[in-house]
């Protein structure tokens, strides 16, 4: 090779940022982001259970935080992340069977994941408020 002395960098595919964002792309990264959120959210669940196993005062402290407006905001986000990641996972199961790869199907699944997760989150919170 004539230019072997100055080693050339191998060509790379165009960076993600040059593409116009598509719903499928957004749902892909949101699946990962909600996964990370749930990773740390699970800590919250453990802290809550450990507090219940420790003392009534510890449980009351955690309960107080969870039922504050900030705690509720976190729990609402937790609920949405959980349901969105679950529906995203079901979408992956559909793909694992070899189905759902058509352009229209991919777009439908991406939109359905978002609509389903938002709808189910509201439903869960309505049930929680009605039955408390």
């Amino acid at each position, binding site marked *: 090779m004539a230019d072997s002395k100055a080693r050339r960098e191998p060509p790379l595919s165009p960076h993600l940022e040059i593409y116009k964002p598509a719903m499928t792309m957004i749902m892909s990264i949101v699946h*990962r982001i909600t*996964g*990370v959120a*749930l*990773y740390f959210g*699970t*800590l919250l*669940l*453990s802290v809550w*259970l*450990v507090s*219940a*196993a420790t003392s*009534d005062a510890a*449980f*009351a402290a955690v*309960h107080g935080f969870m039922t504050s407006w900030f705690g509720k905001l976190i729990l609402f986000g937790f*609920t949405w992340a*959980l349901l969105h990641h*679950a529906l995203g*996972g*079901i979408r*992956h*199961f559909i793909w*694992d069977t070899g189905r759902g790869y058509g352009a229209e199907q991919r777009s439908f699944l991406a939109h359905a994941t978002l609509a389903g997760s938002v709808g189910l989150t509201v439903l*869960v919170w309505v*049930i*929680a408020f009605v*039955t*408390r």
Partner: protein
Amino acid sequence: MDTSSSMKTPLKRVRGLGSARSGTDHFWKQRLTALANVPLVIVMIAIVIALVGKDAAAAKAVLSHPVVAIPMVLFFVSVMVHMRIGMQVIVEDYVHEEGPKVLLLALNAFFSIAVGLAGIFAILKLSFGA
């Protein structure tokens, strides 16, 4: 793994194992736990909803009931495996320097196992009393 002095052919080395040397182990475990998580998450949400507005004594009575405690333990086992693999994939995707990567993979293992076992311990303590 020293590949230069190995008698194995390159094909033999990668066949069935891939670059991570663990084959489809993670792929399979991630889907197995994902499948388990679907019903476990539904049960988990139902349990949390049932506890809304309950005081400590009532909450403990619910959490220590076998019908509640058993799925919760299963939930933590499945989630612990699932979240560890998921975070490992993310680390491997974005962290390419060997030192930080190994450190983060170790922290990932510690965090996942600690969070999971803490949750399981708490459920068992509530169930068995004392």
